């Protein structure tokens, strides 16, 4: 019996030269061209070149919310590399496990890991490739052919993608890959699976879809907002933001400075903001630690600045190539003095664009540093999504002093909103002294406790309107449900799927996803939790940092528990659903 599925999770692993990531990219390109929704994550060993590499591709006829749980299809080019990825490539009894014949039958490791798939298929991949293409270099194309033949991925789109990819390599290479793809398809047809599984045709007409990663969308959002300066230092997994801007920003009259260190990066960005331009920096946890002093300067000098932290496993070097959501405490609390910095968090590739635009708007409107907390998964996974309607987005500019506001100009004038018109060098009549030292309304240094208290209040009060922003929170599900999920960042994608699964089981449940993670909008949570008796706060950190911050600022119902695990251990939606059912029944720990 041939089962048709509308959602397929594939995982491929091999050594560096096996081209598994390249195969994943070809697959993703073909699927998106056909109108499917698809998402791909990559994972590598620590080696700079070579070493083990893997990718997961999830494809669906519906919006793909996360990389998925257990694999439907696993492709092991060799066992050693495959098992190195452990929980990142989880198997179930239903997984179709395909392996290179030369690798031999599955080693004992498979049994030791617990779950042994019932369908294990051995393929003479190298032999097929050599026979079809005359070389084993076209192995990736055979893998694609096999996947196409067995799981119903349209071959034409795959072929188009491969031809485009190898267009510059000459007719011989093109022909070899064509033959390799065809040989893969032919092999699959000649050796049908015991329990075939075919991807449902998508109803969506092949149309234009976006296909990119979160770092792309962060850079694009910055350009859309009119960023004129980027200062930063390379650090995984944020560097692609600087790479993209290094190509693009000049066209818009801006500049990128690859600084000598993280401190100089944020320093130069703050200087550009002082000079009146929209400015940003991007980094990861260790870089954030170095930038902390100048973040304090940005707060007291009341200068707009967007600071992106693409979180990775920490502390210290930690696991630079894998995601974690463990820098929330750092973002919220790593400050000297009383400081409030808005923290915004995207939850997928697509919304990274809008969140970046929002970050610039908040920074410019409130004259404050804003931290964007992305994470490695969102930043580096590739995802398809429908084109974003940018005509609805507003781009804000800072309040500039005019007319009588310059006679005389009081840079830090205490206004009703707490926001003082901000001048910049070049503006006649607007000269002032920016400073890290406490200052009076004019900007003159002051060590008066009265002035300090007033200015602290000003710097906090001006941000109060943020807490009234309902559009920075996504609330879905049954609004008066007794059961709740709260999640942020990349974990929110899992929570959204769990919400649908739970409601499919007839549960009354709802989900809150904050895009504004800090300051904590106490009223939003109070309203949300009013009907709630039990639930989970889902996040990728050992401590459950959002859970703890919520407990600090809000009355979290007793039945709401933290479901937190260290980074590099992806959540499986089915497993989270079980935990949700358990807390719903009062048996959750």
């Amino acid at each position: 019996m041939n089962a048709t599925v509308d959602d397929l999770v594939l995982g491929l692993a091999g050594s560096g030269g096996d081209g598994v990531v390249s195969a994943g990219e070809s697959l993703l390109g073909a699927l998106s061209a056909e109108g499917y929704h698809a998402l791909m994550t990559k994972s590598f060993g620590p080696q700079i070149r070579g070493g083990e590499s893997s990718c997961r591709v999830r494809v669906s006829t519906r919006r793909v919310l996360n990389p998925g749980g257990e694999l439907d299809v696993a492709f092991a080019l060799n066992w050693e590399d495959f098992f190195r990825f452990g929980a990142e490539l989880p198997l179930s009894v239903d997984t179709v496990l395909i392996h290179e014949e030369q690798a031999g039958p599955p080693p004992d490791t498979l049994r030791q890991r617990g779950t042994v798939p019932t369908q294990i298929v051995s393929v003479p991949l190298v032999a097929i490739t050599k026979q079809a293409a005359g070389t084993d270099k076209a192995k990736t194309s055979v893998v694609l052919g096999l996947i196409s033949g067995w799981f119903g991925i349209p071959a034409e789109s795959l072929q188009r993608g491969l031809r485009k990819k190898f267009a510059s390599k000459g007719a011989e290479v093109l022909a070899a890959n064509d033959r390799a793809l065809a040989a893969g398809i032919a092999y699959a047809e000649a050796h049908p699976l015991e329990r075939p599984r075919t991807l449902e045709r998508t109803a969506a007409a092949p149309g234009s879809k976006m296909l990119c990663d979160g770092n792309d969308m962060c850079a694009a959002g910055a350009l859309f907002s009119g960023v004129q300066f980027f200062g930063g230092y390379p650090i995984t997994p944020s560097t692609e933001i600087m790479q993209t801007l290094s190509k693009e920003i000049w066209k818009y009259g801006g500049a990128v400075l690859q600084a000598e260190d993280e401190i100089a990066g944020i320093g130069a960005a703050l200087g550009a903001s002082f000079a009146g331009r929209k400015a940003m920096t991007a980094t990861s946890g260790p870089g954030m630690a170095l930038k902390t002093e100048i973040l304090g300067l940005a707060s007291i000098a009341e200068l707009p600045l967007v600071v992106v932290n693409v979180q990775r496993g920490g502390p210290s070097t930690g696991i630079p190539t894998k995601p974690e959501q463990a820098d929330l405490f750092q973002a919220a609390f790593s400050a000297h003095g009383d400081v409030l910095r808005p923290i915004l968090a995207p939850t997928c590739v697509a919304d990274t664009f809008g969140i970046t635009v929002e970050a610039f708007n908040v920074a410019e409107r409130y004259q404050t540093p804003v931290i964007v907390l992305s994470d490695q998964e969102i930043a580096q996974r590739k995802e398809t999504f429908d084109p974003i309607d940018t005509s609805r987005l507003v781009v804000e500019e800072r309040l500039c002093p005019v007319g009588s506001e310059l006679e005389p100009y009081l840079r830090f004038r205490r206004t009703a909103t707490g926001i003082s018109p901000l001048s910049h060098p070049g503006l006649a009549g607007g000269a002032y002294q920016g400073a890290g030292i406490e200052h009076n309304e004019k900007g003159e240094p002051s060590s008066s406790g009265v002035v300090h208290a007033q200015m602290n209040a000003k710097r906090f009060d001006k941000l109060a309107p943020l807490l009234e922003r309902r559009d920075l929170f996504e609330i879905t599900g049954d609004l008066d449900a007794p059961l709740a999920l709260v999640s942020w960042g990349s974990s929110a994608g899992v929570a959204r799927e769990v919400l649908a699964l739970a409601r499919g089981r007839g549960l009354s449940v709802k989900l809150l996803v904050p895009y504004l993670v800090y300051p904590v909008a106490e009223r939003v949570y109070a309203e949300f939790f009013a009907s709630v008796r039990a639930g989970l706060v889902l996040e990728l950190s050992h401590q459950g940092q959002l859970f703890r911050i919520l407990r600090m600022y809000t009355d979290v119902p007793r039945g709401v528990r933290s479901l937190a695990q260290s980074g590099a251990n992806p959540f499986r939606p089915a497993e989270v659903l079980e935990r949700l059912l358990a807390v719903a029944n009062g048996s959750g720990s």
Partner: protein
Amino acid sequence: MATTTTIMPGGRPALTPKDFNSGLKPIWCPGCGDFGVLQGLYRALTAIGREPHEIAFISGIGCSSRIPGYTTVYGFNSVHGRALPIAQGVKLANPDLLVIVAGGDGDGFSIGGGHVAHAVRRNADITYIVMDNQVYGLTKGQLSPTSPKGLRTITSPLGSLEDPVNPLLYVLAYGAGFVAQSTPADMPGMTSILEEAIRYPGFAFVNIQSPCVTFGQEDQQLRAHKTRMKTLASLGHDPSSMSQALERARDYGTELYTGVFYRNPEPPLSHDRLIRLRQEELAKQARPRSQILDAYLQRGGAQ
């Protein structure tokens, strides 16, 4: 005394040193060398003729870093050691500004020492004034990176065991196009050096031996400077010669030379100029805001 207003070619009244004086009373000790630097800077800026609002004056932390507050230009008294990166951001964001950086020897050659080489190699068009007093004055008399070996301070009660940094040699070796030294003991000389540094189209460094009257050494006071200082011109120094500059810079700490050690006779384009050329070249490739995302569109079907 009757005042007359000179009209500049642009039709606006000529600036006077008073136009640059904010009137704020400095926190410096009476007799501090920094008063002289401030006066010299007022005069140099007057001679340069840029309006105060066209000038950005960035500093770090320390006694000397308070200096922007005593001027009427846009000032930014930032954090310890980071004035150079901030200033480069200012200059790249708006190259039309005249950008000056000031700080002490601790700011420039201890906590912020890592930034100097990079500001120099980028040839940022900024003037970096270090007020070098060989001691930490603001925190009341600790060792500084330019303190001489053997110096007894409250953090080196038994005498320093470390050789000092040689700021002149460092900055010359980094490749700066303009390196000079002066002292407020020679006001006319210092003023003209400041003016020349500001006019230099690229990274310009002026080390000003600016005495600390409270914690500084006896032989580093203005009175001692007056007898110790020697103009480089009097030695027949050729400021276009890097080898002469390096040779004389080695005497830092023993001799007090004033004047221009090195001035690149053919200044290369500064960082902001190069960036502006790149921006001009690529401007036509800019997409309207509504099309920025098009780069990530995958055309569906047969492409």
